């Protein structure tokens, strides 16, 4: 029910009653989205959309940082816990 997915704003246009709307692309499917709660959203931004309403603009910098933190953990993990093949290779060469 609280499903919300990121869509990329293609074009912003007010409807005939002055409600701020946009067309947003969700992995190839284009749908109408209401932007009344995201006055800062611009064409090209990703917005998080729930039941036809953008609830926020996805923060690209934060997304990159979260992902980088996970990547760093992945690399540290490889150093701290050698892969079984690497460990086996280390045994046979010693």
């Amino acid at each position, binding site marked *: *029910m*609280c*499903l*919300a*997915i*990121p869509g*990329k704003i293609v074009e912003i246009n007010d409807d005939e*009653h002055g*409600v701020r709307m946009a067309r947003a692309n*969700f*992995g190839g499917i284009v*749908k109408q989205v*209401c932007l*009344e*709660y*995201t*006055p800062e959203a611009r064409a090209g931004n*990703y917005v*998080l959309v*729930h*039941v*036809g*309403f953008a*609830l*926020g603009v*996805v*923060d*690209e910098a*934060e*997304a990159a*940082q*979260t*992902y980088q933190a*996970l*990547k760093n*953990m*992945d690399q*540290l*993990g*490889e150093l701290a*816990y050698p892969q079984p093949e690497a460990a086996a290779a280390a045994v046979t060469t010693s």
Partner: protein
Amino acid sequence: MKYLDEYRDESLAKSILAEIRRLVTRPWVLMEVCGGQTHSIVKYGIDRLLPDEIELVHGPGCPVCVTALEMIDKAHAIARQPDVIFCSFGDMLRVPGSDGDLLTLKSRGADIRVLYSPIDCLKIARANPDKKVVFFAIGFETTAPANAMSVFQAHKQGLMNYSILVSHVLVPPAMAAILQSPQNRVQGFLGPGHVCAVMGYEEYEPIAAQFHVPIVITGFEPLDLLQGTLMALRQLEAGRAEVENQYPRVVRREGNRSAQQLVSEVFEVCDRKWRGVGSIPNSGYRLRREFREHDAERIFAVRQIDTRESDICISGEILRGIRKPHDCPAFGTLCTPDHPLGATMVSAEGACAAYFAYGRHLAAERIAAQAREEAVLS
């Protein structure tokens, strides 16, 4: 899709799991609050990937599940009226009331329409001035801005034939109710990411402090859920109880102020009855007096409906994290998504329905059959 696919990376999931295994020293019980998170956890088998010490219990965050049976019966009574176009999110269609579901009513000729967004109601109301258009406004704080905007715009545009049947619920009072229970097992929470996209997480800070539980606002993808678990575990192992944000790409501490403003202009907080749980003080929204002309409960004055829940169903305990679907004798046998006995089976996001959808009732049957076989052999 961007911002979804990268959070499903298997190799990264393995490294978070390795870190969780390295850190954990004793058993902990975590609750994911939101039904969408429950669904993801069961779909990806995240609870089974975690070490045995970490138990995930499933929270009350499925608005379809916790909508009181009386409210569903009220919706049906309104939908049956000949001058009504009754609109709803698709999730609500198959939820049985005391006498069938909305789909059955539709097959009997009621004008029932499934909508993607409540804003679409305005077009229907404009095109059908001789009909009363009613939207079944259920949901948590995530959905409140959309439902509020539909009423606000209808009022502004003079669409007086539009009303909503409000059954809104709020997360923080439910979390507090769970923690206050003497039977409570929950030691930390994965907080509801999309609720907090709207509301922010300031209101969770007093809960974390008062009950000394870590609350990690968490997203919905597998890596989000694993990272949220890791962050909660770090706090638990260190004896900390803070609100942390795993989901900063979407959630800011203050939330979406313009959404909050319109929601509080249209709705006010009220007590709300949760299916399976009972009434929780200050845990819902109702329309403010200024918008009473759009309040379906007032317009249709449906009389108080008496309903009766199943005696076997343990959904109330499941919603509070005290028991799991497998603990119920009716799970997967008497109670299935086609014939749900209670709250946690009525919607795909309910814990019982998610367990059923991903074959866990079969696992339960295998274990039961094995036990029977062993009993015969011994």
